[in-house]
């Protein structure tokens, strides 16, 4: 990787050159090869960083030998204590004590001596070119330039302000771990390591983004994850050519299968325990620096209805809750559409007493039910969106406005019927039951076209919408895995963790839907023997 910007399109090249001639950039004036002259090397770093106020260039001499050294680092990204106590102090003070006791340091052995005896820091690397060294500087490491060497030492002294590990906001559980990912990649990988001590868990890191150089780590368990899946992911990551990776959600859109779909094709999670559980099923987790979300691939639609909580509770309870979520997803999508269809097309289908009371409440409303529904659903979406963006103290106001004014007052003013308010609130509650935010919002959007279809074609329109959503879902893929697995293609074995969550003892195999190559989760023979013995007792 080069810092130099690549001009791929020859048509643009001329204009690019013109633009560059006005503000000549640092990389056009400097050669990337490091020289033996320490001053010159420092000058090369300065060519890039001199204008930035947070860059620090510190020149000093190595002990009393007269070899000049320089440190280059970015203030704020490094731990100052490490630099002072473990790099500069030994090099300047303690070395001169050693020299007094007879050890000689000259030009020929200075580099090795410094690396092996002076710097008391765990991680030390070296760099031969400027762009490699520069990349380390920009990610918070310290470059140590020694005069007379055409390579530089890279000392790890990273340390920056960091958010502490906290309860994951978007995926709360009652019974389960209360820690979520943070914005620092290293913290996140440590969280994963703490949950799985298998040395086969591989964490590979690459840098994406021509300018942002964002660290992107992908984690998998060797021996469970299909190597073909890893190759596919690596291939997709290598195709990413962009200046900045903004967040994990941004990266997701750059490597997903079908971008013209409202449904997420990777599972984003804030929870390390969920991530490790998915790794154990053979999936790959993609962690992006500066983003507290891991992406899990391949994903299927059914996964978005699973919560880590399901596996902590007894299977009967979890199965009930899981079924509830599926019903909720149907309610969230279809309730307003079915209501419109029933009221405006098939009023004969409503039980007669209910029909009478609906008619009584609707007699005050001046709009047809489709208009009424769209007004109310849009209002609800407005409330939700404003609530999500507002600072917390003002957030309560939204609650009052939503509850009192939109609910009660709108009915009294004759703008909407109480039944419609019930329909809208049912939709709202149901859509928040779905554990994954991105899947829930994808489903919620579907309500609007469905309402229009119901308003024009009644229940037949609702069925058309239902079929269209199904076509969309079955034709989608996530890393080659059909989105509707295990329903279509039907995989009987995986149905035990679909609408119901089967007993933990019966989950002896990993799901087929994640391409796992090692299917056995529980040793069958051992387990059967165990059951036999307990049966006898």
């Amino acid at each position, binding site marked *: 990787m080069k810092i130099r910007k690549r001009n791929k399109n020859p048509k643009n090249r001329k204009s690019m050159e013109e633009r560059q001639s006005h503000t000549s950039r640092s990389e056009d004036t400097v050669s990337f090869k490091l020289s033996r002259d320490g001053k010159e090397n420092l000058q090369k770093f300065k060519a890039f960083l001199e204008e930035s106020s947070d860059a620090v260039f510190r020149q000093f001499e190595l002990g009393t030998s007269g070899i000049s050294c320089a440190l280059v680092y970015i203030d704020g990204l490094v731990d100052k204590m490490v630099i002072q106590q473990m790099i500069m102090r030994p090099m300047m003070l303690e070395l001169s004590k050693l020299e007094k006791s007879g050890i000689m340091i000259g030009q020929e052995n200075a580099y090795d001596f410094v690396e092996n005896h002076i710097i008391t820091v765990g991680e030390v690397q070296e760099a031969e070119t400027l762009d490699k060294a520069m990349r380390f500087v920009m990610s918070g490491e310290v470059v140590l330039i020694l005069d007379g060497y055409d390579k530089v030492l890279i000392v790890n002294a990273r340390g920056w302000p960091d958010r502490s590990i906290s309860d994951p906001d978007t995926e709360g559980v009652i019974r389960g771990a209360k820690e979520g990912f943070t914005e620092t990649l290293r913290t996140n990988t440590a969280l994963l390591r703490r949950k799985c001590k298998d040395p086969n868990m591989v964490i590979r890191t690459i840098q994406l983004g021509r300018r942002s150089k964002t660290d992107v780590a992908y984690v998998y368990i060797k021996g469970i994850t*299909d190597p073909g899946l890893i190759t596919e992911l690596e291939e997709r990551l290598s195709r990413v050519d962009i200046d900045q990776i903004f967040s994990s959600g941004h990266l997701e859109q750059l490597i997903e299968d079908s971008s013209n779909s409202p449904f997420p094709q990777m599972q984003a999670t804030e929870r390390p325990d969920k991530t490790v559980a998915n790794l154990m099923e053979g999936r790959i987790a993609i962690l992006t620096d500066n983003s507290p979300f891991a992406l899990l691939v391949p994903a299927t639609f059914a996964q978005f209805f699973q919560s880590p909580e399901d596996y902590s509770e007894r299977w009967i309870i979890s199965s009930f809750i899981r079924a509830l979520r599926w019903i909720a997803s149907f309610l969230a999508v279809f309730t307003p559409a079915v209501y419109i269809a029933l009221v405006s097309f098939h009023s004969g289908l409503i*039980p007669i007493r209910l029909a009478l009371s609906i008619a009584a409440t609707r007699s005050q409303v001046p709009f047809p039910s489709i208009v009424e529904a769209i007004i109310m659903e849009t209002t609800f979406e407005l409330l939700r969106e404003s609530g999500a963006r507002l600072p917390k103290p003002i957030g309560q106001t939204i609650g009052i406005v939503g509850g009192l004014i939109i609910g009660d007052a709108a009915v009294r003013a004759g703008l909407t019927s109480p039944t419609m308010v019930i329909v809208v609130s049912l939709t709202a509650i149901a859509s928040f039951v779905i554990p994954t935010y991105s899947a829930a919002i994808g489903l919620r959007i579907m309500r609007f076209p469905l309402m229009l279809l119901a308003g024009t074609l009644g229940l037949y329109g*609702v069925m058309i919408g239902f079929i269209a959503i199904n076509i969309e879902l079955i034709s989608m893929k996530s890393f080659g895995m059909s989105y509707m697995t295990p329903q279509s293609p039907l995989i009987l074995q995986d149905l035990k963790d679909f609408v119901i969550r089967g007993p933990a003892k019966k989950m002896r195999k990993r799901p087929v839907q994640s391409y796992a190559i090692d299917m056995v989760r529980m040793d069958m023979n051992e387990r059967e023997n165990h059951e036999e013995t307990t049966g006898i007792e």
Partner: protein
Amino acid sequence: MKKQQGLSNFQITAVVTQSMIGLILLGIARRAARLAGIDGVFVTLLTGVLSAAIAAVMILLCNRFPNLTVIEFSQEILGKFFGRLYGAFFVFYAMLVTAVTVRGFADALKMLLLPKTPIEFVMITMLILCSYCVAGGISSVSRINEIFLFPVIIVISLVILMNMGDVDLFRYRAVFSNGIKPILNGIPEMSTAYLGYEILLFLAPVVKNKDKMMPYGLSGIAIPLVLYTGLVFVSIGVDGALATADIIYPTIQLARRISLLGSSIEKFDILFILLWILSIYTTLITFLYMASISVTRLAGLRNYKPFIFILIPLIYMIAILPEDIADLNTVVLLSDYIGMAVVLSCIPMLLISIVRKKGGKNNGS
């Protein structure tokens, strides 16, 4: 990474079942009662078994040419000219079935659900929705079939089971009273009710486990066989053979009798119609796929997507052509005859292919 290619075993079953259950589902008992009175049950059962036998011949024929559809292997068996003529029949037949089905569906929907909506609008929306799915290829078609199979089976079974208690076995008195003859006479007309399994002729190249076509294809026929027989049995048992023969949609009649949850769901027939829309849709996409793949293979091309959009207006034109139900019935009759010809032609085709030593294990294609 294991690529998921081809139809899984279960998808074969789903495609066959779903292409068979369609328009006739609503009127199966009427046809059976009209043909043989109370013996209609046996007509239905027997015809289903015979259809399964023909389907078995079909699969044997397909197994001789594992990488070809009927359009291509008919040219090998019959020679270029007759083979193409035979293929052209398939195009015509598949288009006709699609048109008839969409028209019959629109008529039924107007009667049952949407009295004020023009049938043209219903047909256009349905055909557009079909082209959306078929454009995704056989994988989309088979998955939609698969995903809608369970709802359809469950709702039909519910109709049968919930009415089982009302079956009056007295109405079955004097079974076989007219001898075996009316049963045998009813078979030819009844067999058109089972049409749809000819899609098997197009599945061979896209199936994943080619040796599993026989058991899973036949179980695809067993499902409608059981459901149809059940419907006819219940319908005649509840309403009597004479009344059943006079009801336009006996199945809807059965659904209407059901009331669930203390009659809070008393309009079960509407739920039934909604799920019937799914099974009509799956029939339509299967036949639209059949039509477009036939045209494409006849023209010797690979990409069939453009042909869908050429076929859709043609199908629509055929569908609006009949002026009333009587006209429509004539077209239905035509399509049924062609369908039977197509299905029965598999037997001579198999014989010719054996005699001329075309296909089979030694065939390298």
